[in-house]
């Protein structure tokens, strides 16, 4: 297992390094002068040019600039936002909470619902339930997440008026305590439903196909031949074997979920990192944009390594490698 983990951690470090290089080179490769990009306007004042040149070492050779860039990052300095002149790190940290709330809850819900439906479909393979669920999984897989969000707003907020259209809290009531929690949950329903619905097909399909695959393994025949009851075979042996692929997909799925969450935040004006990123794009706030991208890449890489570690712990075939 040590070898496997060392390899995965190495890949993770490489991912972070490559993200840094991409981040760094994008600023230098993008059309126009990096100073203009970093200043956020086309004709920055001489004073500004001087500060930026000094700060990013823009007059030095490119590799020195890169080392300089890494050094500042290691100090925890992600630069300053052009819009608000505040540290990028601080701006991002303020928005992490709402994004995590949306992302984590939806992942857990989709994992549980999708896997349960997939197992049911696999056990009733070829039944009406299986066919309908398969059809729905195709349909939701083909649905753009932002459009699904809009349609939910159209039906449940605009026409039926059951849920609020946007935001995380009702700004008019300024509620506190429990009332505030309920208010947030109320606002959470539609965005959460959207992000969950787009993830369910993923887990559904993996669970369905891996249950079917496991059921056709030779060891199932051994247990049957020995007279073990179908339910026991399923609960004890099929389930654990079939759930393993879900763990790996969970890791791969993460980047996809985060990008989905980012778009849904924009649709529902949810005050998280996705919305912050969009503002950064529209205001051409490059230090902020780069900061967000870097943070996302690093955290996704870290999460995927954690998932790999978990997988290695569950699967003895890797544990003893």
């Amino acid at each position: 297992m040590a070898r496997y983990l060392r390899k995965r951690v190495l890949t993770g470090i490489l991912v972070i390094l490559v993200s840094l290089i991409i981040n760094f080179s994008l600023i230098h490769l993008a059309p126009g002068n990096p100073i203009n990009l970093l200043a956020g306007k086309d004709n920055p004042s001489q004073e500004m040019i001087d500060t930026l040149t000094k700060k990013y070492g823009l007059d030095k050779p490119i590799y020195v600039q890169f080392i300089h860039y890494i050094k500042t990052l290691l100090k925890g300095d992600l630069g300053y936002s052009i819009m608000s002149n505040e540290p990028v790190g601080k701006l991002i940290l303020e928005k992490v909470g709402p994004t995590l709330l949306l992302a984590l809850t939806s992942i857990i819900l989709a994992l549980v619902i999708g896997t349960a439906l997939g197992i049911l479909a696999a056990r009733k393979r070829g039944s009406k339930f299986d066919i309908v669920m398969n059809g729905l999984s195709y349909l939701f897989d083909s649905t753009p997440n932002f459009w699904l969000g809009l349609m939910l707003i159209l039906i449940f907020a605009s026409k039926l008026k059951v849920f609020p259209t946007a935001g995380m809290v009702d700004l008019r009531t300024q509620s506190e305590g429990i009332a505030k929690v309920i208010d947030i949950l109320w606002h959470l329903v539609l965005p959460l439903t959207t992000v969950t619905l787009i993830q369910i097909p993923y887990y559904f399909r993996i669970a369905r196909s891996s249950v079917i695959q496991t059921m056709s393994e030779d060891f199932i025949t051994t247990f049957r031949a020995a007279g073990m009851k179908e339910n026991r075979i399923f609960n004890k042996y099929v389930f654990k074997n079939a759930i393993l692929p879900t763990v790996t997909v969970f890791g791969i799925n993460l980047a996809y979920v985060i990008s989905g969450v980012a778009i849904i935040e924009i649709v529902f004006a949810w005050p998280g990192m996705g919305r912050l990123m969009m503002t950064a794009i529209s205001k051409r706030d490059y230090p902020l944009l780069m900061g967000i991208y870097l943070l996302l890449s690093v955290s996704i890489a870290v999460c995927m390594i954690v998932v790999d570690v978990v997988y290695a712990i569950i699967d003895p075939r890797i544990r003893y490698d």
Partner: protein
Amino acid sequence: MKLLSIKNESVVYRSKTKNVLAVNNVSFDIDKQDSVGIVGESGSGKSTLALALLKLLPKNADVTGEVLFEDKDLLKLSTDEFNDLRWKEISIVFQKSMNSLSPIHRIGSQMADIYTIHDGSADSDEVKGKIINLLEMVNLPTRVYTMYPHELSGGMMQRVSIALSLMHNPKLIIMDEATTALDVITQGQILNEIAELEKKLKIARIMISHDMSVVANTCRKIAVMYAGYLVEFGLVEDVILNPKHPYTKGLLKSFPPLKGEKGELRSIPGYLPDLSIPHEGCIFKDRCPQKENICLYTAPKTHIVENGRKVMCNFAGGDC
């Protein structure tokens, strides 16, 4: 004493587009402590026949006929009644022993789990002791108990499968190509051990193999199958020394002789017929070197010759 008696058993695999007649009207008996080897090329129906005995065929397979095990018709038992009989009376060892247990559960715990199906009252220490005894019986170290299948070699896993099948002292073991995947030396060792255990535990055995020499060395009787038919059945020495069916003769020519001078090795030209199409005459007619006009239109009857020997050939009654 008869232990198992198969009477007119047929198996049809049904699908939307065609029905494949995989086993056709097969009958033979197995005595207590007997050993019968079923040989034939792949697709001859030998594995289907064995899996049908344990009701392990997929749902689209229709089994007809009678399978009398100690005078109970296995085909008429309910699922629960049949589950009680599985492993306690009849157990099986599969070919792909590497995949015969779940890869992510420990071998000992799976064996214990299988043990408790038919002996729920035993406490866990008792079960563990019993499993460890079984492992020792098949010459495996006791640490196998806490190991996972992928940590064992093919030969060791095959021993685990054999230990598993002997767990409840069954009266009959089916070995479905159980040693085919092993190297020659391990195969020889395991076959010898099986022979000893059988004597000790008084077990009857059905051995399915495409390898005539394995069957000749380890079984008392031999059943030759071709395209779903039992074409020849009898004592090993009778069949090997004096094969009566042209297919058996061909099969024997394709293996090096066990003793005596080496003759020419020859394979049987042609292929198995398509079993989803009804045929006329003898099933072996396309490949038979001795066929005559009668074989094209008249399906051969099964002739019973000396020593309970059966031959399904138009010329078996007379001289051939």
